[in-house]
């Protein structure tokens, strides 16, 4: 009787879907006819099943992990979900379709019926055929887990899209889907942070993102390089997003052609700007050459001169035993000479030290440079879009060729204008 009521209810639900709500139903007569046929059919099936001695129609009795554990059930991608059925008779697993949150998840290979658990075991795998479904289920994640309802549907011989007709006894059962595994998230966070620290954290103290045209300047005071900065932005974004997608989806093939092209464009821009810097004769070359002639080839030499001043000052200040007059005069002269060299050094490098990240990015010796500003703006905008798209769609965005061409033109414009430009 229970099965009969279930079939009647299911039939009625199907009829409603087919003919709409009662109030605006236009073809009421057809509806009534179908309802009647459904009830008759259900009664016939019920009678048949009683006559054959089989169980009532299947429903989901519970959810478990593949080993049958129903407590604190938490499964993520690549995990196995056991959907326990009300029947103890083995069923053909290939005839059932899995629905998560009402979405049909196609092409789940390795689905089988576990006779011990009386359950269908679904391997929650993501592949090219179902990736869009998973993207819809997992996209825009705001927490590590989410609750997912499970329903089943019967596959049709004609391969038409199945419908979620098999639920729990009263409602669709739910389980906790692990969007991001904490330990994988931890490893990924460490990997991403390490990269970001290496690239950006050291940027202020090292010459990684600096022009380094005058190596005699303390790396902390070197001017930021727009070309290197842009390259670092795209590298960081693509790397972080790739790691994010990998830990989320377990898919190592998320890099899109467009992401590679963005990295290529930014790399080419940075490389071209270095080539231009190396090829043209700029005031920085003069300072570099002049300081070399003064014996200052790198910042290490500056530190050496400072130390020599300190050492000589200490020796000059030592009174025990008192220094001979000629030695004191010599030390004094050597200190004065080195102080003069350092004064000249400071004077010469002053126009070439960093005035802060933003000013370094957008200005040259003539002030704000439009070609620099446009590179900065487009990189920032596309970078933000890139991050949003990855978070929202769980895939590297597919930028149009026009947009990529825009980035290339922007970079080429920067390199072209850089030739006569003087970085200050």
């Amino acid at each position, binding site marked *: 009787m229970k099965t009969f009521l279930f079939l009647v209810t299911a039939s009625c639900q199907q009829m409603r879907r087919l003919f709409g709500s009662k109030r605006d139903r236009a073809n009421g007569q057809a509806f009534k006819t179908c309802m009647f046929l459904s009830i008759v059919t259900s009664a016939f099936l019920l009678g048949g099943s009683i006559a054959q001695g089989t169980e009532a129609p299947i429903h989901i009795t519970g959810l478990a992990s593949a080993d049958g554990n129903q407590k604190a059930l938490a499964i993520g991608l690549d995990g196995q979900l056991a959907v326990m059925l009300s029947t103890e008779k083995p069923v053909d697993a290939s005839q059932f379709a899995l629905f998560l949150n009402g979405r049909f998840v196609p092409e789940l290979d390795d689905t089988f019926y576990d006779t011990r658990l009386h359950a269908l075991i679904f391997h929650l795998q993501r592949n090219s055929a179902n990736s869009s479904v998973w993207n819809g289920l997992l996209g825009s994640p705001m927490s590590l887990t989410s609750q997912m309802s499970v329903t089943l549907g019967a596959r049709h011989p004609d391969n038409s899209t199945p419908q979620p007709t098999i639920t729990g006894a009263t409602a669709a059962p739910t389980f906790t889907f692990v969007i991001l595994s904490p330990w994988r998230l931890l490893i990924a966070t460490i990997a991403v942070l390490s990269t970001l620290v290496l690239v950006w954290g050291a940027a202020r103290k090292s010459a990684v993102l600096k022009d380094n045209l005058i190596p005699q300047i303390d790396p902390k005071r070197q001017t930021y390089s727009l070309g290197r900065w842009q390259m670092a932005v795209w590298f960081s974004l693509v790397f972080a997003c790739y790691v994010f997608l990998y830990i989320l989806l377990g898919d190592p093939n998320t890099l899109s052609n467009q992401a590679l092209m963005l990295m290529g464009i930014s790399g080419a821009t940075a490389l071209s700007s270095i080539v231009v810097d190396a090829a043209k*004769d700029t*005031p920085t*070359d*003069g*300072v*570099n*050459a*002049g*300081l070399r*002639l*003064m*014996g200052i080839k790198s910042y290490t030499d500056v530190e050496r001169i400072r130390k020599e001043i300190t050492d000589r000052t200490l020796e000059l200040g030592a009174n025990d035993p008192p220094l001979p007059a000629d030695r004191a*005069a*010599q030390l*004094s*002269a050597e200190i*004065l*000479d080195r102080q*003069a*060299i350092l*004064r*000249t050094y400071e004077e*010469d490098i002053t126009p070439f030290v960093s005035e802060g990240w933003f000013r370094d990015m957008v200005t040259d010796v003539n002030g704000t440079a439009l070609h620099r500003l446009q590179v900065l703006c487009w990189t920032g905008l596309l970078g933000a879009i890139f991050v949003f798209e990855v978070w929202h769609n769980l895939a590297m965005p597919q930028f149009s060729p026009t947009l990529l061409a825009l980035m290339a033109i922007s970079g080429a414009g920067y390199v072209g204008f850089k030739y006569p430009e003087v970085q200050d």
Partner: protein
Amino acid sequence: MPAIEHVVVLMFENRSFDSMLGKLYPTDGTFDGLSGAESNVFAGRSVPVWSSEKMDPLSACIPDPDPGELFADMNTQLFGNPAGSGAVTMGGFVSNYISQKSEASSDPRAPMHYFRPEQLPVMSTLAKAFGVSDRWYASAPCQTWPNRFFAHTATALGCVNNSQFPIPFPAPSIFRRLESHNKTWRVYFHDLPQSLLLEDLWLVAPLHFRFMGQFFADAHTGALPNYSFIEPRYFANPIVREIPSDQHPPHDVVYGEQLLALVYNALRQSPCWKKTLFVVTYDEHGGTYDHLSPPSAISPDANSQNGFTFNRYGVRVPALIISPYVAQGSKIRPTNIKGAGTELPFPFDHTSIIATLRKVFDLGDPFTARDSVAPDLLPALNLASPVNLGPPTVSVPIVPVTTARSVASATMPSNHMQANLARMAYALPVGDGRQFTPTLHQIEISSLPLLATIARDRVKAFLRA
């Protein structure tokens, strides 16, 4: 007397008259230039005067390396022997050049080289637009310092070579004389001003010494002092990509041309122009050939060295006399009557600057016996009113200074002038209690760029005081 209120002197380095202006008026019998037949004999072969076909950087640096310029070298160039005995022949330039240690493998023709007018467009344009003198000699057959001191003090106090001078130089200068007569003066310089050696300027130097940029500002606003003395750039500085503009061999003469053009254009556009006398000359010939024998001179004082009493002029040097009061194409020799008259017994020399200043600004008695007989330049101002305004501008030669070029220039062996200017800078009292002054030998064997750096720093510190 012409209403001259501003006298501006630009003194370059170490080029003879013939090497720069010898062919300015090649067919004019009233101009004592080169005929082309002049020569020296070396190793039995005639080495004639010559000019390079091109005006590329190599040609613009001839003679390279630097010829000898010590007193003994000049004796050899003039007399054929270092003692300076016998008659002046002007026949020892090549042999002296080849005898220099660094020049043994050099082209023996180098000191006989001259630039054609088209190779020095600024100098030749101005010479023809105003006046040129073929009778201006260095004050003594000596190095830079003695001759520059003659321009400032009318004496070298008996020193013939740069390295012999006491620092500071104690003779009273024309600058303080101007000051005592309520006349204004400034020294405009690029890196190390040689005139900072003058002892009587040390106390007032910060008030009067200005970097060259100030000259252009003063000219533009009409704030030029009564007397401006301009010193070219003596040192290369790769940091700011500067190359010497002093034309001292083997420095590229084009950068001197640039400086000359810039100074003329600034003066020409200045409100002061109609009251300005602009003199361009060279301190000494620097071992480059000139065919005219220097005449005898009046000894400035009782000082002498090894029997030389400074009773001879040095080799002829170029001199341009530029003013709206000077007629176009003037060929100027010292006379007592404006534009005519009998040639005076003494030629122009650097003390003519002092004589002119004394006369223009009524500065009183001469400094020494030399400037007492030196002809002044007022007769050269041969127009009754300032009507020869000259070309509105002259083209400034554009020769980009690359880093490689400035580095090459900075790493040349130091010349005597540079080494001694560095010595001067070390001796400047900048209030740091320095007691150790390196000897000339110590400076010469050190890195010149490093010394120049320290020297520039000390000059700046001194002038800030």
